[in-house]
């Protein structure tokens, strides 16, 4: 069994994962699991998804060689440009996949959570396209700091519900989306945006995000004839990282996840259960979940996908931390040298690549360039002051 073959039938990646939810949701998760396996094995579903990804999302996204930035950092740097996918981030890959599943299951409405707002925008856009009513739960703090995305969601017809409870960020938004789902598990489809949550979500979201790594691997080999030395991506819940990593899992390629300084659950967490899965979790000695603090709303999450917890403990991937200041500096360098404005989440991966370059001069790196940074201009203005 290689690392790429997990999860098992119980939704476990080694010891991590599982399905820790109220009994009311068990049936919905079992149906989703079954329907997802059937859909992914159904050639027609695959064709419908591919057509949407190509003609509406804009896939394949380019693999851009970042010549000047790479030179500055002493590496051969390639950016897998998910910022160029429709709505500006990788989130759309999963949103489209799951929304087609929701349609197949006959769901009457979709609920979703969002942190930075990228997943919310993707879900709102997909639901507009497919004609599905959609409610997005978003922490009140995030509603404030990601206002442009709130406006986009509303233009796409989504109802955006600010969540004041708890820490009013991504984690509170997930709590609230799950409560909405528990209230109507048969008619509501919960379109979860990261590789977290109860089985089958960590697996399902990964399957819809693998397209990142499949394309990147093919594009890199086409351009260079070899494999890269490393793949680097930021990790909050970890969907863009898993999507990039997974197709390289059996290759001699270093896989590196970059966590945000104030939200480093793989590095500083302990195993525990949050939002339906057993994974690494930032918690106190009494098992209470800690509040996180990152400049990046998309990484501001105390848990992490169970597959990352497993890849870390089995040394199939390595995880490092980048702080707010390093991320902002990398963002500025990327803007100045490449003419591309990354999301603050993506900026963490960039800073990770710069740090990697110090230890591995000349290495070739594919970087999961997960999203565009327009949404972060207000935050950047604040950081600059």
């Amino acid at each position: 069994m290689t690392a790429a073959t997990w999860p098992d039938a119980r939704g476990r990646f080694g010891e991590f994962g599982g399905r820790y939810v109220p009994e009311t949701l068990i049936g919905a998760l079992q149906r989703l699991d079954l329907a997802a396996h059937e859909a992914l094995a159904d050639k027609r579903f695959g064709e419908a998804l591919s057509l949407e990804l190509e003609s509406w999302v804009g896939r394949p996204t380019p693999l851009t060689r970042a010549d000047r930035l790479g030179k500055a950092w002493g590496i051969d740097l390639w950016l897998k440009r998910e910022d160029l996918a429709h709505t500006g981030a990788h989130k759309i890959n999963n949103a489209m996949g799951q929304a087609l599943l929701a349609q197949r299951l006959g769901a009457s409405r979709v609920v979703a959570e969002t942190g930075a707002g990228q997943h919310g925008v993707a879900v709102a856009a997909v639901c507009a396209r497919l004609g599905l009513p959609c409610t997005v739960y978003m922490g009140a703090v995030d509603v404030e700091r990601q206002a442009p995305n709130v406006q986009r969601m509303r233009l796409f017809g989504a109802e955006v519900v600010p969540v004041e409870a708890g820490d009013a960020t991504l984690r509170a938004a997930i709590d609230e989306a799950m409560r909405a789902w528990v209230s109507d598990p048969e008619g509501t489809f919960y379109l979860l945006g990261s590789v977290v949550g109860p089985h089958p979500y960590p697996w399902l979201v990964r399957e819809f995000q693998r397209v990142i790594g499949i394309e990147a691997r093919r594009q890199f080999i086409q351009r260079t004839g070899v494999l890269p030395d490393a793949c680097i991506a930021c990790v909050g819940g970890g969907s863009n990282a898993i999507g990039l990593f997974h197709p390289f899992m059996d290759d001699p390629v270093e896989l590196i996840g970059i966590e945000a300084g104030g939200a480093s659950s793989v590095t500083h967490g302990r195993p525990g259960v949050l939002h339906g899965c057993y994974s690494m979790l930032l918690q106190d000695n009494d098992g209470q979940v800690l509040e996180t603090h990152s400049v990046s709303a998309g990484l501001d999450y105390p848990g992490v996908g169970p597959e990352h917890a497993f890849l870390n403990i089995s040394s199939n991937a390595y995880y490092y931390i980048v702080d707010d200041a390093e991320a902002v500096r990398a963002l500025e360098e990327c803007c100045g040298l490449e003419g591309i404005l990354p999301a603050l989440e993506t900026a963490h991966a960039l800073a990770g690549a710069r740090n990697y370059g110090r230890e591995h001069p000349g290495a070739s790196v594919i970087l999961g360039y997960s999203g565009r940074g327009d949404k972060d201009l207000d935050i950047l203005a604040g950081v600059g002051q």
Partner: protein
Amino acid sequence: MTAPPVGLATALENQLKHPKSGVPALVAYLTAGFPDRSAFPDLLRSVARVADAVEIGVPFTDPMADGITIQRTSRIALEDGVTLRWILDMLESVGRLEAPVLLMSYVNPLLAYGWDRLTDRAAEARVAGLIVPDLPWEECRPVRHRIEGAGMALVQLVSPLTPEPRLKTLCAASSGFVYAVTTTGTTGGEGNFAEIEDYLGRVSRHSAVPVCAGFGIRNALHVRQLAQHLDGVVVGSALLEVIERGQDPVRFLRSLRPAPSS
């Protein structure tokens, strides 16, 4: 060494089968340490005098099955420094209570405490059982025997959406009682019990232990509607709201149950 605590789960089952006054049995839910830690032991003692069992809620930062009332009381308790350790110490020092006590907790505080330590300490504190809303059947199997081996009940929750074969399994596996969730949704809603007679009947048929319903049970009318279909009712959010308003929880609990007809 304390004596083996065998029988706490059985005592709980008996109490629910033979309520103190009238039917159905009353299971009262209190968030541990709410309204504050110093007032809680007296509150617990007085509630235990009226109720047939008391569920003590272990506060958690992310209570995904709970509505706004228990979210609020949990947050207040956490801010007041309530931990599982405090709860177990309090239970040991509070003295003999007039009703069996269960802990209702999300799984993470239990994991952090450690199952072995928990089963030892909880038995010492005369905890009759555990209710863990985010530990469904598939995930509880590794710890179920350890909990029941310590003489404690592990209460299984069932929902109106649980399919028949699974319902059979869960009812057969439950100890202490079967917790029949009345509705989809979170705790603290407004009960609508018009269409659940069939469901409650099926739960009762499959259960060897008492059946108690919970979620959305707020007043005497709700209790009367449900009384004929089951052994007990769990009252949580409505009771906490009474406490929040500074009203008398004992009086409220008494008002829920019609006087036994002679």
